[in-house]
């Protein structure tokens, strides 16, 4: 087989890996290319080199598929403005907190991240994520009781704690047409989970009135092998730079 063809099929495998809903069991070409990747070292190197050039990293590959993650500053990296383009700073903050809370709800303990990513984690609901966020808010609110209120100037310039932003947003709101109000935290969580579902990170199922979202293998691998540590490092470095 020529080198050109080798590079071509390496590109094809990357393309399959980028499709959020593609499964090797359902796509014969994907399955064949994946077998080749797992068996031939030379092909594996070619795939990794092309992915690296594109700003992607292969973090896992097995019979369930290939998991690619964008490296820093990659064109494939999602931005918060991609998720909700018209959002203001406060909404972006809440969306970001919700994304982290979703991960923390799936992995509430440090050693959960150590478990085999092929074992499906239990499904979560909008209420679970809301509870995760509100519990922390309540705890921080309790801790702040008795302390002085925020200084007016700090409030105007955003120099007040992030939990207050979330706490001040309504959780429920009556609407004229009995729909869920878009201006509530529950709707924001629902929107985030729906978006993750579209991205192939979650599957959705209904059990009566209970709407459940279950993380996919691809999402579990991404969080356990890549994201959790990176997110933690970002928080640490932000805390360090704030304390200087």
């Amino acid at each position, binding site marked *: 087989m020529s080198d050109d063809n080798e590079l071509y099929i390496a590109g094809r495998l990357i393309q399959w890996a*980028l499709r959020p809903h593609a499964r090797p069991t359902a796509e014969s070409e994907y399955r064949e290319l994946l077998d080749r990747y797992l068996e031939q070292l030379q092909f594996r190197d070619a795939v990794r080199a092309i992915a690296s050039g594109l700003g992607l990293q292969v973090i896992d590959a097995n019979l369930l598929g290939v998991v690619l*993650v*964008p490296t820093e500053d990659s064109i*494939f990296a*999602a931005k*918060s403005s991609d998720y909700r383009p*018209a*959002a*203001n*700073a*406060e909404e*972006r*903050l809440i969306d*970001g*907190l919700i*994304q*982290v*809370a979703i991960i*923390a709800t799936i*992995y*509430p*303990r*440090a*050693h959960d*991240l150590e478990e085999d990513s092929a074992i499906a984690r239990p499904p979560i609901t909008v209420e679970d994520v809301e509870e*995760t966020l509100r519990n922390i808010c309540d705890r921080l609110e309790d801790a702040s*009781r008795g302390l*002085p*209120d*925020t200084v*007016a100037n700090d409030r*105007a310039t*955003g*120099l*007040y*704690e*992030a939990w207050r932003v*979330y706490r*001040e947003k*309504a959780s*429920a*709101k*009556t609407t004229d047409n009995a729909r869920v109000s878009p*201006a509530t935290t529950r709707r924001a969580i629902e929107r985030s989970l729906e978006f993750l579902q579209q*991205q*192939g*990170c979650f599957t959705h199922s209904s059990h009566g*009135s209970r709407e459940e979202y279950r993380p996919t293998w691809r*999402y579990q691998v*991404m969080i356990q092998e*890549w*994201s*959790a*540590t*990176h*997110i933690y490092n*970002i*928080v640490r470095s*932000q*805390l360090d730079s704030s304390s200087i």
Partner: protein
Amino acid sequence: MMTSEYQIRNTESFQTKDGSSLPSDDNKWVHTDEPVPTGNYWDRHLTHQLRVLLHTEPLLRLLRRDEHRSPELEHYSSLSLALKLLDLIIENTGLEREIDNDKAVNALLPLLEAMDHSAGIDPNIERHKQMARRVLEALCNDEKGRRPFEITYTDFDQGHALERVLVVRLLEERYHINGSIILRLSNEATNLLLHALMFDIEDAQAATEAIIQSQLARGRIHEALSSARLALLQSQILRDKIERILINTQRDLSRVDWKNEVPCILTESLEHIQSRCTVEASIVTAAWERREALPPGSNEMRLLAAIISLVEDCSQCHTELHQRLIGARQVFLNEQERQSFALRPRADLPHLLSDVLEPLFQMKRVDAQKALEAIFPYCLNAQTPHAFSLTQYISRQLQPRREPRPETVPIVQREQIDEGSEKLHYTAEAYNRALTYLRALEEPTRLADLLQLAIDTHESQQTLEIIILSVLRHFDPHDVSVPLLDVEKIDEEQFSIEGFSGNNVLLSNKETSNERR
């Protein structure tokens, strides 16, 4: 001079001529940069009292609004309606069918009718509903998107006067266990109405017990029974919280902060239990007294017995909890010894709740925003960038229309909603944000200052554009059907901020400027 007689003339710092000595009446104040030793004049309990008093501000704001209402509504007293509404919610809290928006509006109708009669105006149900909704919206702070009320006050810290912001919520909507949305008073509002200055104004259990006492005093025994159940539930929640800490300690010591957090929780819980035991005893005494005045075997007597039993259960729950609290430290010491050789998770794996989410919540808003911008790409899959393809675009445009096959697709009945024929460029949310700024103008303000405020609050580009366009529209008063603002060009001053430039016009709130005139 007594503390309360000392007048702070300015929010800046002052010092007497002779340094630290207390000022005599003859002394003149000299302005220096040195802080005044406010410990002598300003005690922390004054800040506490000030905060409690300020909780009434959203209610008093209703009174001020009455003066600016349209003529057909100006004879209604918003404050009376608001108090009735709050009282009604207290009466129904914890019942199976609590008050929702519609019930709240309907409950105010008789009062509105009475106000019409007294003003010699013919009653009108639509007008009544309109007014009732206004009161409800004002209590929920609909004007500010149902955020809490923000009240600025002056506090003193280490000799410096500081402006602080008190955040107050009166009413909030919550999900009832049956799935409907109901109205509930915040803890602050409940305590404000029923206990005012006596208790910790944000204490949930104190709020519930205040409700029971109030309902007992009014002879609303059914309601008091439901509230007593709620009080028991809250006691159980506190017990569960302590149990959870102890279970987590037994499972994995490293998951529980025994250095700072848990000792504080234990101390606070002990204090809470002691104060609750006193209140519970007084509720039981009140219920017994009421019971003795009733004829034997009556239904009310049976209900009072149930209340006494529930409150005694609460008390029992607190006694058990007290024992757990006393023994908690021993549990910690035992587990510390037992788990000292347990297998630890990999050190580089973070605990996402306590190492990531909680620090993010504790960060300043601007720092958290910065961190979350960097975190966001790690929360989502690799996103394929959209590249425009002329070939694909043309072929999509030219492809024949697909034949509809209605038999293969289930037809979902769509809900029809009112929508104008024009497609709006700006989102309704951006409009509301912009209107919030325009409505909030209390003093005449330059356009550049308003714009800068919006930019500092990180408003979206759309919101900034709507503010500018609204000001432009208001410049010609005939261009706007219901003008909000007066826009005046008072001089030739120009501004240029974030790509916007032009005359730096003066904006003033229509209502305020009318009032001034």
